[in-house]
């Protein structure tokens, strides 16, 4: 049995880890590419209500056929107090209204201008008609519905006829 000579003196060779960084980098790049960062960080506090069977907005986001509008109380306490004195509790946050004042809050009057500005700033080749561009309203649970309908009225005036009511999708198991 000399063919299978036991060589007890040989030590176990160490695992070659030189390709470990490559693997980790691959994972890293995957996450970097797959991450979609929020377009803007709203300065109003939004706790979304829960709902089932809502439509996924990802395809619309990819085609940039969607504008987000946030409604909630201002995050900043002092600011919330100041607005409350003016009789405004729930305020609107829109991205890119004016670049110089990124965390400005507005009331309903600004919706038309924001929407039209956004629509015109889109390149011509990917212009869906304004009726088709979804205005997605991300509102806080406690927002009075009257405010939602005010926005709806404003959108109706400029023929932006698609609205989305954002909810946090909860997977209620289909009871069957």
């Amino acid at each position, binding site marked *: 049995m000399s063919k299978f000579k036991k060589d007890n003196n040989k030590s176990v060779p160490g695992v070659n880890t030189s390709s*470990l960084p490559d693997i980790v980098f691959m994972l890293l790049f995957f996450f970097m590419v797959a991450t979609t960062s929020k377009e803007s960080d709203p300065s109003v506090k939004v706790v979304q*209500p829960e709902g*089932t069977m*809502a*439509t996924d907005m990802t395809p619309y986001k990819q085609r940039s056929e969607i504008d987000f509008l946030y409604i909630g109380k201002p995050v900043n306490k002092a600011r919330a107090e100041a607005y409350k004195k003016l009789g405004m509790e729930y305020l609107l946050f829109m991205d890119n209204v004016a670049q110089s004042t990124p965390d400005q809050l507005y009331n309903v009057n600004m919706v038309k201008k924001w929407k039209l500005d956004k629509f015109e700033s889109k390149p011509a080749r990917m212009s869906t008609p304004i009726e088709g561009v979804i205005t997605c309203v991300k509102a806080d649970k406690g927002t009075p519905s009257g405010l939602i309908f005010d926005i709806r009225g404003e959108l109706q*005036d400029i023929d932006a006829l698609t609205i989305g009511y954002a909810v946090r999708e909860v997977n209620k198991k289909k009871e069957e």
Partner: protein
Amino acid sequence: MAKREIPEINAGSMADIAFLLLIFFLVTTTMDKDTAYIRNIPKKIVNQEKKPPVEERNIFAIKANSMNQLMIRGVIISNPDDISEKIIEFYRTNEIKNDPKNNFPMYSRASMKEIEANLERALEEAEKVENTPGAMQDIIDFKYRQVAEWEKKKRALQLYGKKELPEIHPQAHIRIEVQKATDYELFTKIQSEVEEAIYELRNDAAMKIFGESYDKILSRYTMDKSPADKEKLDLLKILYPDRIIEVTPKR
């Protein structure tokens, strides 16, 4: 000068650095999708004529007041989860057989012959209007939309594979009436229930007719936009239309 050997850079800690970055991205990534209920806003009507009367049986009114209390078709309910069942009842009651005694919308059942006759008539009318000098483009478009509608119904019935195409009354709709102070949470809850009911109705029909779930057809259609799937979805939409009216609150 003596030849010096350049020492190799130790890359052993490279993995650690990469891991650190990886963990950072893992933690900061939020995977939650944006989801919403998409609704169409009706076009603004400039000169409002008298509203056409709608039979009470065709209205499924969901009302919510400023105290977040719910009322469905005049009955106060305490559990909002019941809405979807009530909506299904609204669609299903007269689906098989019309009973004028109850307070639910009637169904029409058009046979292939009737649909074809209507299609022909619509086409004739459309051509007549088009050939009339001075006809408004709006009217021509409207006539051709009607033709398209009948064609859609014809294809739907072919796909349905039965003698008749059951269709709920064209005025039957779900009406959401909230007050200004109603919480957004309740408003979306109502929307959620409506969506759930429509989904269930369409899913049942999809399983019965095509043997696959509505979800499956829908997600496949968003992927490859095949015309066969579009016809399937059209049929389901004709069988269970989602006509939702959101009434702007006055107080």
